[in-house]
Structure formats: C-alpha cells, structure tokens
C-alpha cells in the first residue's frame, strides 16, 4: 500500500489548452479519495496521468516514495477499473483476472488461489468460465474489480466505474466498492462527475474545475465550509442558492439588501464586512437550511413568490422567484403553502456563506 502525491501536476495539449493545471494533492496511504467535477474538468486526465496512460507536461507524481513520471503503467504497481470495464472479450472471466499475474510469471497455484479469493469476494464463482459477452453489465463491472483486486496493487484507480449501470445496481456496487476498500485497506482514487457518489464514498474529496483544484477536504468540510462559490454550488443536492446583496454601512451598522431580501449580519459577519470595503457580496444558502417565516434577529430574510411545490414525502421542495432570481427551499410538509403565495423564507447566520463577488472566494469567518 502506498500514498500518492501529485505535485504541481500539469497537462497541456498540443494546441495549448491546459487540461490539468498545477494540481497539488497529497493522498494518504489507505485513503479513499474522490476526484469530482463537471465533465471535461480534467479529473479523468489526472487519473490517467497517475496510471501512466497520459504524458505529464510538468510536475511530479509520486507513488509511495517513488517518482513515477517516467515509469510505464506496469511498473507503477497500480490497477485500474475503466468506465467501459475494458475486459478481454476473448478470455474467460478467470483468464481475465489471471492475465496480469500470468504476465508476471506467478506460479499457477498462486494465480488460482488469488483468482478464487477475488471471485469469492465479488460473488463471481459461478461465472469463472464464462466470457464477458455472456455477462450482464453489473457482472462485468465486478470482473473488472476482480481483475484489479487480484493484482494486489499499491493503488486502485477507478474511472467512473458506475456510470454505465442502472440506478439500483449503482447503489449496490457502490456499497461493494466501499466494502472492498475497508477489507483491503487499499489506497483508492475514484473519479466521478456525480457529487452524491463522491460524498457518500470518499474519505476525502478533491473538487476540480477546468483543470484547477478547487478544494480538497472531507465531505463534511466541503459541505459546511466550501472555499469558493464553485464548490459551494457543486456540492449538495439540490444546489445552493446564491443572491447578490448590496452592502450598506449606516453609522457602523451593516446591513445587506437586495431586491426582495434583507440580511442582518451577526457580529462576526458585521466585522468582516465593515472592513471589507466591498459594495456587494454574494451570499449562499442551502435549500435545506431555509425555514418558513422571517427571523427578527440576525439572519437572512428572503421574500419568495411561490412557483412550484413538489411533495417529497417528509418534506416539500418549493421553487420560487425572488428579485428576479430562482430560490429553492426544502421545508416541512406541515406548511399550507400554495402556488402563487408570497412567503418569507429565512436562514440563520450560521447557515450563510459569504463570497467575494469578484474572486468568488469564501470570505473567512462565516459558517
């Protein structure tokens, strides 16, 4: 087992486009880390560079203590699970899993026991002599996992392994991967565009956008203290609401006002904004943190014209407009709200995130 360090990792394509821009991530030995971000953000490119399938323009990758930049994939002690499974179509499941070990001239007895063990973990024993073409998608995915497990690599790399599965299988396989991680105590780097997947599976998550690392942290850290507007909006479903509010300082009392909304900051926020010298800020608040009815003390009040009401069972999801913006809230089902109503929704200062409207960075102190 080994940790992986990405040091200023950069990938530039021939046309000049930067796919990955100075990625710095320190992955601990045995950690399950997810690379997450929208399509084309560079997460898969970064993974492939760790695997050795893409050339590195600059920067370093260290697996354990070794710099692996110039090592071919097979010398990096890694295993990879591809989105399309990439199983050898002409080989049986057994041979698919045994292939890597055969190449290393492992004694047959050892190969057999390793394959049997992996098959047992993944419930593939019945299929060992079948070919991939005879298996379902979920079974193929497990073979791909088995192929990786058998090699006992230092690092597991997974490239959106669940995207081709239906919803139910996805949930099942997710749990299985988590179980394997616990059992093997292996370092796993998992790429996905689905933030729910990332949040549920990862010890830590690296959010990447346009090749640049936005934030690395535990799910809780990303959820409670997103460091910039992108992370704030990316993590959490439904996503965070954002409104721009103008800062007004009247005799030392700071208030933020917008069209249909008003924010009375608490002391920390006031202190921050008084010295901040900003005319306006972007305030973010999660749908699940809104309540029906205004707050009188410090906090945010948003006047919303209800548009859509969706019944979720225990909660109600409401959409509305406020000052030209869409606002989404999740509130208790007890409320007798109707479409067309105008309500005031509020959030306490603890639940507010303030961002610099220009740099989009989190303004320290809140939350």
């Amino acid at each position, binding site marked *: 087992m080994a940790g992986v360090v990405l040091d200023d990792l950069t990938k530039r394509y021939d046309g000049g486009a930067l796919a990955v821009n100075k990625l710095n991530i320190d992955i601990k030995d045995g950690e399950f880390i997810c690379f997450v971000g929208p399509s084309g953000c560079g997460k898969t490119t970064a993974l492939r560079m760790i*695997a*050795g*399938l893409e050339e590195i323009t600059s920067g370093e990758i260290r697996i354990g203590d070794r710099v692996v930049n110039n090592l*071919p*994939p*097979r010398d990096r002690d*890694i*295993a*990879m699970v*591809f*989105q*399309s499974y*990439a*199983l*050898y*179509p*002409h080989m049986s499941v057994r041979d698919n899993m045994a*292939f*890597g070990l055969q*190449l*290393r001239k492992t004694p047959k007895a050892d190969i057999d026991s390793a394959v049997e063990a992996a098959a047992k973990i993944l419930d593939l024993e019945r299929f060992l002599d079948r070919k991939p073409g005879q298996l379902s998608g979920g079974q193929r995915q497990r073979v791909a996992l088995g*192929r990786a497990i058998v*090699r006992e690599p230092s690092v597991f790399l997974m490239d959106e392994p669940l995207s081709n599965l239906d919803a139910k299988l996805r949930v099942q396989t997710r749990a299985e991967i988590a179980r394997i991680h616990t059992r093997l105590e292996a370092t796993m780097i998992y790429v996905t565009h689905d933030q729910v997947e990332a949040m549920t599976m990862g010890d830590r998550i690296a959010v990447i956008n346009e090749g640049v690392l936005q934030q690395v942290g535990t799910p809780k850290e990303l959820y409670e203290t997103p460091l910039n507007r992108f992370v704030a909006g990316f993590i959490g479903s439904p996503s965070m609401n954002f409104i721009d509010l103008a800062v007004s300082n009247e005799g030392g009392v700071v208030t933020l006002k917008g069209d249909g909304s008003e924010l009375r900051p608490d002391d920390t926020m006031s202190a921050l904004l008084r010295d901040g010298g900003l005319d306006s800020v972007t305030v973010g608040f999660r749908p699940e943190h809104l309540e029906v009815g205004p707050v009188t003390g410090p906090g945010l009040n948003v006047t919303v014209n209800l548009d859509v009401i969706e019944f979720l069972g225990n909660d109600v999801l409401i959409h509305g407009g406020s000052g030209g913006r869409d606002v989404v809230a999740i509130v208790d089902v007890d409320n007798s709200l109707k479409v067309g109503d105008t309500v005031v929704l509020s959030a306490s200062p603890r639940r507010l995130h303030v961002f610099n409207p220009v740099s989009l960075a989190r303004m320290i102190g809140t939350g």
Partner: protein
Amino acid sequence: MSVADPTVDVLPAEPKQDVVPTIGSPVGGGWKSHLGSLLFLLPGAVWLLVIVVYPFIATIVRSLFDGSGTRFIALGNYKAIFSTTDTIVSLKNNVVWVVVFPFLVTFFGLVFAVLTERIRWGTAFKTIVFMPLVFSATAAGLTWASIFFNDPHTGVVNAAVQGVANAVNPPGLYPVDTSAGESVGGLAATGVESGPGGTLQSKSTVTAGGTIELGLTGISPTVLQQNHATTARIPTSSNGAITGLVWRDFSPSHPTERGQVFTDEDGIAGLHVALLSADGSVGAKTTTASDGSFSFAGVGSSAYRIQITANNFQAGFNGIFFLGTQSLTPTSSLNPTLQAILSLPIVDIAMIIAYLWIWAGFAMVVIGAGLAALNREVLEAAQIDGASEWQTLRRVTVPMLRPVLVVVFVTMLINVLKIFDIILNMATPSSQGGASTIALDIYNDFASNNGQGLAAAFAVILFVLVVPAMLMNLKRIRG
C-alpha cells in the same frame, strides 16, 4: 485531389436491423405498393435467373456429358480430370496458391496495419501499398514479368542478384559457361592438359632458366580484344627464372596447325598462372602480360608445372529463370504423376509475390479498419496489467482481431481459387502448362473443340471448393 486516410470512413458492414426487418411492416399504400416493390425486384431477378441461376444448373448438367454434349458419361469427365497429369498439375498449383497465399497476405496485411499506426506518414504509406489494387491483374502480371526478366540487363531482380553474385564470385576474364556445354578442358591445345578443380596445367615441367609455351584454343577473339591482348611473343629465358607464354593457338593463315607460334596469333592477356609443385601444392602466382608472356623470378632448383588457375574461367552470373517451371523441390527422379503432384514451379513463387503486391493493401486496409475499431481501453488495461508491446499484440490485439483476420483470409482464399489473369500474363508460354490452375484449364478447355464437358466439370469442382466459404458467409449473415 487530397489523399484521404482510407480507414477514416468505414461503411457499417453489419446491418443495423434483423435480416428481415421485423419492426412493423410498412403500412399504407395497399396492393399498389405491394406490387410496386415487387416490380422493382423484376429486372434484377430476371437478370440473375437467366445469366446466373440457369447457367449454374446447366453447367452441372453439362459436366455429365462428353465433349460434344451429346453422350451422357456421368462422372467420366471427373475421372479424367483426376487421372491426367496435366490436370493434376493444375490442381496442385491451386493447392500451392491456397496453402501459401491467404496466409501470407493476411500476415503482411496485419503487420502493415499494426506498424502504420506507429508512424506519422501512415496515410501515404497506406495509399502506396493500396494502389496496386487499381491495376488489372493483366497489367500487374506484365509489370512483374518485366521485373523478373531473365537478362540481368533488363530485369531488375536479376540485375540485383547478379550484382551480389558477381561480388561474391567475381567472374574471370575468360568465362567458361558449363551450362552451355563448354568445358575448361576443352580449351587445352598445345602442351596443356586438364588439371584438378577446373584448372589447366602444363603437360611438362620446367625449371629455372627455362621457357615454356602453352597453347589454348576456343578463346574468342572478341574476349581477347576486350582484355587488350596483343600479338603473342615468346619471352627470352632468364637465369633463375621461369618464363613462358600462353597464347591462342589458332592462326587464321594456318588454321589447322597447332603447336607453333605464328605471327598472326595473339597472346592471352591477363591470365592468372601459378607454379605447380610436384606434390600438387600451388606456389608463386603471376599474371600474363598483354602479349601472353609471364615470368616467375627466383624459383630455386625444383621443377614445376605451370597451372592456369580456375578463377580465370569462372562464369559470370547468367540470370535465374524466375518465370520458368523449374521445380524448387527435387522431383526430377520421380514418376510423372508424383512429379506433377510434388514439384513446385519457381514461377509460382514469382506470381505469388506479384499477387501479394496487389492484394496486401486490401488486407492492410480491412485489418486496419478493424484495428481502429478496437476498444482502446482494453489495450490500456493490458498495459496496466503489465503486458509489454509484444505481449499486448500477441495476447490481446490479435485475438480480438480474429473475426477480421478470418474475413480477410477467407476472401483471399476464394479469390485465389479463381486465379487466372496473372498466370496468363506472367508465366512465359513455355511455362503456362506447368503453372496452370483450374480457372486456366476451364478456359483452355472451353476454347478447345471438344473440351466443353471437361470445362464444365472443372467449373463444378471450382464451385465445390468455394462452397465452404459460401456457407461461412451465410452463417455470418444469419447469426
């Protein structure tokens, strides 16, 4: 006209729907559309029935009758085919083609397809190799016949072989062509006899201070002129040295007299001579001057013969008859039937090379398309699993390419069974018989007066040979 990458666009070979589309029969139109689409079938159907289906049956029937078409002889034609040496030769040649060619062409196609992925000028290469498909087998056969010409002056291959052969075995100034019936011994005239190993030697010995005259005949004056020979001159004797003369013992003025050095006889210039001791060992060497004289200085007291060394008579390279039917397998001592079966005409090799030149591009393009369609991630998985380039190729890429390789192999197999044009145009008239194939025999029999029955039988045999491929195609389309 830009040169496009031939493999970029691949026509979908697999139909997107079932063999008969079952997704709802067309609605609307009524009996008129029913009739209309059936009418569309008519021209094609009629054409095929008249020119393909009916003749197919007619040929089978015809094969059961004799040459004139009137007498029913059942399998008589077939028996004749399998028992005549000539036709056995044809069958054998077909076997040679079938065994050698599809394998070679698929192999080269695979190698080229794999290698062109690694270079930048892949499109240009593919175009060059693919282009000969555009040639008719006739033009290609004629082109390659010119490449394989006998005469090293006009045939590229023989010129190259000659260059190598002459570098390895340089010809002498006075070549003796043993294949034309000449012999070294035949050159001996006066005082000269044959020696071991293709040499000539003096009949008598000579010691220091002596002179010896050696006369040869059968040397062409043109060759002498080429070697700058002048009139023969007997050298003077010299103390402690052996001197002598080698001259052409033929005088135009005294054509029948031998032994005397006439004034109109030429010396033999540039001839390598050596001292031959009594025990057979070869000593000092020298070369004759333009007047044929030579001298060995400081020879001691022994008596020597003069040896005219073998390298003088080394024949130059004459050219290999690539387009002949000389067998590459040693069959000359076998009976005619076995000979017919086992001999391997050299012209077959030449023609196979020519045919490879035409069709390797086809194999390369088809396999290349298959290669491009492979799932890259499987190959990457192999890399990660630890396979080297070669291991990936051998254990993953090629097995995954198996369907494509089979298609190419079978297509070429069928193609080669019918091989015809290239033989007509490449094998020389004398070689046609030894190189003929089934298709050639069909044509020859057809064109002859009474061979129609045989031709029909041969055609049926040809058909039977392609049936396995036919079944394979059908299976592929249905499955």
